[in-house]
């Protein structure tokens, strides 16, 4: 799924190379969510999901990028973020999406938890070919 970026609004690309970048991404997503007028709870959910995924990209994907911007489809507006890395990828997606399962000593809530926090969630991955996760939160 390529995110349906709003016309004339190119997504911003942020690097995820070190732990401090996760903080910057949270700030960027917060600014976007406020600009898009997501409700306070939805803002919080979107920022938290982005935080989880950015950390995953760093920890399991060996770093990568996130493209974040506003999207619109059929008059609905929202905030989207695409997390991409060229790490080892995920061999068992179903397992990776299970609550509590982790390959890296975390809580195992990153992927499954992030999915529950957003409206649209798509995971594209293959062993050895990296991982791309797209999330969208729509304005209610």
């Amino acid at each position, binding site marked *: 799924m390529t995110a349906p970026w709003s016309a004339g609004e190119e997504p911003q690309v942020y690097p995820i190379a070190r*732990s*401090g970048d*996760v*903080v910057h991404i*949270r*700030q960027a997503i*917060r600014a976007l969510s406020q600009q898009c007028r997501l409700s*306070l*709870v939805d*803002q*919080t*959910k979107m*920022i*938290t999901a982005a*935080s*989880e995924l950015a*950390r995953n990209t760093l920890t399991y994907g060996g770093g990568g990028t996130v493209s974040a911007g506003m999207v619109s489809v059929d008059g609905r507006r929202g905030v989207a973020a695409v997390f991409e890395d060229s790490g080892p990828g995920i061999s068992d997606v179903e397992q990776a999406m299970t*609550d509590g399962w982790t390959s890296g000593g*975390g*809580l195992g*809530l*990153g992927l*499954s*938890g*992030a999915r*529950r*926090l957003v409206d649209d969630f798509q995971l594209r991955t293959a062993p050895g070919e990296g991982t791309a996760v797209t999330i969208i939160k729509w304005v209610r």
Partner: protein
Amino acid sequence: MTERIPILRIGKTLVVSVQFDLEDQTVLNLQEDLAEQIVAKSAQGVIIDISALEIVDSFVGRMLATVAAISRVLDARTVVVGMRPAVAITLVELGLSLGGVSTALDLEKGLAKLSRPTSSALR
């Protein structure tokens, strides 16, 4: 190099107020510092004020749970105070319920909670 969050002491209670969005390393430092300070100051209670935090993700959530567990081992109690409604809703949705962590609405109520005998002592 990374920032460290100041830990205040009032009597036998340690008070930490998290005022800004934390980098993961800062979170780990805080966890370490708190464990050391509980022993060094022979503290009986720890209060972590997160009322300024706009988000708590699984990393910070895990730190709160770990600090609570560590303090229990060291015979102290931890109360997390001031979690915002939106943060609480998000944490629940994320799947974190912070089972072993005591909570209070604000600093004052947190201190009151620490001054009361534990419910296990009453049983």
